[in-house]
């Protein structure tokens, strides 16, 4: 109850600041839930290893910086490729075998993988975080009058918006996207048209994983690079996907940004509940619209 005592409605400019911060966090949620939605929408796999793959992206950036001297900007390309290839190997050798089984098997398999990956990194690096600095050109920030906006956060919001829109565009508006969507509806028919469906599925999984890794690289300078960084985030991101509608690309993007803002406002008005609010919304959405806000009922 004490929490309510120190609520004072902040003046409008302060509220703008909080809204902007919510939007930035929403950008991360959108990036991560987008990868999940692509994988679920096209492969029917509930990818519980997504948080671990996000962590791998951040660690990959950290490792190539410290051992090879490759900095932030190339990492944005290198880390998603490396982690994406790793993802494709997982798909090729493990995940492939559970497509025809109940969703639960895919969930358990990827969950187990996440535990193993996190365990290995914790063994080598411990649970304390590793440092990763903000790249030189993006340090500092702008005084917007109502708040101080760090340049790096501005970059995050621009970058993730571009990636989100790009992904949506490719899947919903291009021929390649049409093949992908068709292959999930009826793989046998698409194969009959001469398209290598298994390879396409592998590439799709790799792409979803690469998105997670990219989010990890973007996150590395803001949060600490630690083996557990993904496991804390993944549950929230799952809630975002459920709210947006499982498998809906648009739902994942809109849901990510919207929930970032709602969470940001909760941090102002009732901070104690800020780690819970997304799950409350999830429960309400499931009661009212079980398929999620943008989901199609099967």
């Amino acid at each position, binding site marked *: 109850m004490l*929490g309510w005592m*120190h609520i004072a409605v*902040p003046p409008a400019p*302060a509220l703008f*600041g*909080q809204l902007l*911060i*919510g939007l*930035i*966090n929403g950008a991360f949620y959108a990036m991560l839930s987008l990868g999940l939605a692509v994988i679920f929408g096209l492969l029917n796999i509930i990818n519980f290893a997504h948080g671990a793959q996000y962590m791998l992206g951040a660690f990959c950036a950290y490792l190539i910086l410290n051992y090879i001297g490759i900095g932030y900007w190339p990492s944005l390309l290198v880390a998603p490729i490396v982690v994406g290839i790793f993802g494709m190997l997982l798909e090729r050798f493990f995940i492939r075998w559970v497509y025809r089984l109940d969703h639960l098997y895919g969930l358990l398999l990827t*969950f187990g993988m*996440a*535990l193993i990956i*996190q*365990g290995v990194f*914790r063994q080598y690096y*411990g*649970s*304390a*975080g*590793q*440092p990763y*600095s*903000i790249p030189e050109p993006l340090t*500092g*920030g702008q005084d917007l009058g109502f*708040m*101080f906006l*760090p340049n*790096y*956060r501005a970059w995050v919001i621009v970058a993730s918006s571009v990636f989100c829109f790009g992904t949506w565009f490719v899947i919903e508006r291009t021929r390649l996207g049409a093949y992908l969507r068709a292959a999930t509806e009826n793989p046998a028919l698409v194969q009959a048209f001469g398209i290598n469906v298994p390879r396409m599925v592998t590439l799709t999984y790799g792409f979803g994983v690469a998105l997670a890794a990219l989010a990890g690289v973007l996150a590395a300078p*803001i*949060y*600490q690079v*630690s083996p*557990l*960084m993904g*496991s*804390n*985030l993944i*549950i929230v991101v799952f809630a975002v996907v459920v709210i947006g509608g499982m498998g809906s690309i648009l739902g994942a993007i809109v849901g990510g940004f919207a929930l970032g803002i709602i969470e*940001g406002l909760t*941090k*102002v008005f009732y*901070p*104690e509940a*800020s*780690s*819970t609010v997304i799950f409350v919304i999830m429960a309400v959405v499931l009661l009212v619209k079980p398929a999620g806000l943008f989901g199609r009922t099967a």
Partner: protein
Amino acid sequence: MKRRSLLAAGFAAALAFAATAQGAQAANDKVVIGVMNDMSSVYSYLGGMGSVVAARMAVKDFGGKVLGKPIEVIYADHQNKPDVGAAIAQKWFDQDGVDAIVDLPTSSVAIAVQQVAKQRGKVTLISNGGSSELTGKYCSPTGVHWTYDTYALAHVTGKAIVQQGGKKWFFITADYAFGHQLQDDTAAVVKASGGTVVGSVNVPLNNADFSSFLLQAQQSKAQVIGLANAGGDTVNSIKQAAEFGIVKGGQRLAGLLVFIADVNALGLQTAQGLMLTEAYYWDQNAQTRAFAKRFEAEFNGKVPTSGQAGVYGAVLDYLKAMQAAKTEDGVKVVTEMRKMPINDFMTHNGHIRIDGRVIRDMYLFQVKSPQESKYPYDYYKQLAVIPGDQAFRPLSESECPLVKH
């Protein structure tokens, strides 16, 4: 998270099993010291296997035998859960012949285990656990709180900052018992020294993004932002404060519980200028360096944390007292410990009070800038030595039932 704890439970079960196998024939033909801490999660870098290494070093330095019996060190993961810790403690004491449990980070677990030990007249030597209540309300005639506590951190850091002119405080507080206590302890010092608290925000534990809270702190116009949190929460709040230009904007941060591993995670660029209180820093003098060098050789080149260094000191002191008292009886050994002054590489003329509190000097450090740092882990410069009787809670304010007022 559920899934992490599942793995940890399996791990702990395996460890506990291994410990049983070792201790089954123990009975009374050896002295057994159990290191119990977080081996797998958020606080494992403060103690973890490093504390086991430190305890084994102490046993080796003592000669490996006491009262003619060999000394054995076993360990277990309490997973930061009081019920798990208490269950392991019961089994250790009742079946495995454990004489003393050391380290015990995570105050809630330390309190639970200390109660189990107290009922059986067994010894707890707490190093990484922080709550000052371990020698307050929950004190024990067989419990010793070795390295630091929340009261000392709040007093040393809080007072120094107010004296430097940081009078208006805003707290960012981890929303559980430890965070609230750290905030209360610090707020009391701030007020007593003539400062004011202009606001606070309670943040759920394990929060990743602090920007919203930092913005609130910024708008409060406080001079000092007190971080009443620990581990990853502290690291993330300091890192993001730098990003949002908090320190450049004229406000300063007070990290109330910061360890050397946290500074390492932040990097000096971000952590520079931060003031913090610790009981040990590896690079203070020839003795502390010598210990660190030996420890690094045993533990993959990692510098010891103050908690791990404290484990070494506590175990050595315990064994010396046992030798002097000529018995394994917990009450008698701890009584003997209270009589002996403590002198080792990190403690000079320390002593143990009736409430179990080790009174030792605490050190106020400031984190160096990247230019000042010349070699790996060259992180702190020492600003002040605070004598133990000024750093820790005086007995006159103690709620410990053993203290006669």
